[in-house]
């Protein structure tokens, strides 16, 4: 789960994707790669259960099973939190590779939640990837950074370095506001697809429920009333190869009265 730019919804998306895959019965673990700025645990609602972390496991200070936090709501879901105190140099390519190999024994999917930027943490989060979900907002700086990170995936991932089949890329367009698109204020889905030229896995509408779910520490896919949650579940389905039509990219139909209220809001 990568993006280049910060604040586009990587951690929200990593939590939602992990929970979505786990809800579908796949054994899933999500790793926080943002060393020093731990947050995945908070978004997933397990911040008080962190004892050991990813860096402890890499350094051999703790066993993997001591650091893994099993989700209390979904039994196929686990979280590997990162260190809040170390710096990103604590991550090594060999160490990360070892932990990922160990996790492969027990899990069907390993989601690496990348930090922003293109430095060590971000490079290591994508290095061992087979698939990459590029989280992008319909906004110029996010699209530019996504293009940059796609370039990095194509040249500096293990698959690129070892001449294997390339990392499979998926575009996840988040914070999409169909009304603003209709008014010509925001890039359209088609615009972003034209520019980045990678397959679309999902469109996540701008939604109040995302903030609400992070407030309470529950991945947004577990809120069945949330359109963003539904959109994430659709995206997970497509990621798994299901054919699901894209919803939520057209403005909601409003009556005249509602429109008046909405314009004046």
């Amino acid at each position: 789960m990568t993006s280049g730019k910060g604040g586009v919804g990587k951690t929200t998306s990593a939590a939602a994707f992990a929970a979505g895959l786990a809800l579908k019965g796949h054994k899933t673990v999500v790793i926080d790669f943002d060393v020093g700025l731990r947050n995945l645990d908070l978004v997933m609602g397990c911040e008080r259960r962190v004892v050991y972390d990813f860096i402890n496991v890499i350094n051999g200070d703790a066993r993997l099973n001591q650091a893994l936090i099993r989700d209390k709501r979904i039994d196929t879901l686990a979280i590997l939190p990162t260190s809040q105190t170390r710096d990103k140099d604590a991550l090594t390519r060999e160490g990360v590779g070892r932990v990922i190999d160990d996790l492969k024994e027990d899990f069907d999917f390993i989601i690496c939640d990348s930090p922003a930027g293109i430095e060590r943490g971000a490079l290591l989060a994508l290095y061992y990837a087979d698939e990459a979900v590029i989280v992008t907002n319909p906004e110029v700086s996010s699209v530019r950074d996504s293009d940059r990170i796609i370039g990095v995936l194509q040249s500096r991932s293990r698959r690129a370095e070892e001449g294997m089949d390339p990392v499979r890329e998926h575009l996840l367009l988040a914070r999409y506001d169909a009304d603003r698109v209709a008014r010509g204020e925001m890039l359209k889905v088609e615009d972003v697809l034209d520019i980045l030229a990678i397959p679309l896995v999902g469109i996540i509408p701008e939604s109040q429920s995302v903030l609400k779910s992070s407030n309470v520490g529950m991945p947004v896919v577990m809120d069945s009333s949330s359109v963003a949650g539904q959109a994430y579940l659709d995206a997970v389905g497509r990621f798994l190869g299901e054919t699901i039509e894209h919803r939520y990219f057209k403005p909601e139909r409003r009556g005249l009265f509602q429109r008046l209220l909405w314009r004046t809001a």
Partner: protein
Amino acid sequence: MSLLRFFRPRAAPSAPLAKERLTVLLTHERAARSQPEYLPRLRREILEVIGKYVHLDDDKIHVHYESQGTVAKLELDIELPNQSQQRQSQVAQPAVS
């Protein structure tokens, strides 16, 4: 106030400009990304070597790199000043060696 705003004509859409700017910028950035890292240094050194013989402005040398499959092509386009200009500049700057 709000009602007035409702009937006011809408501002020109800005999204098409965003797309256009991104398209231009990314075409440029992708081309730069596919080039070998030594290219800017190569360009500077070529400029220095030629500078020993004729005075050359920085914008008169174009280094173009293209890579397709297994073949990579390096194109150098160097625009030399014409003879009379060159002589003038040599007279003006005899110290250039």
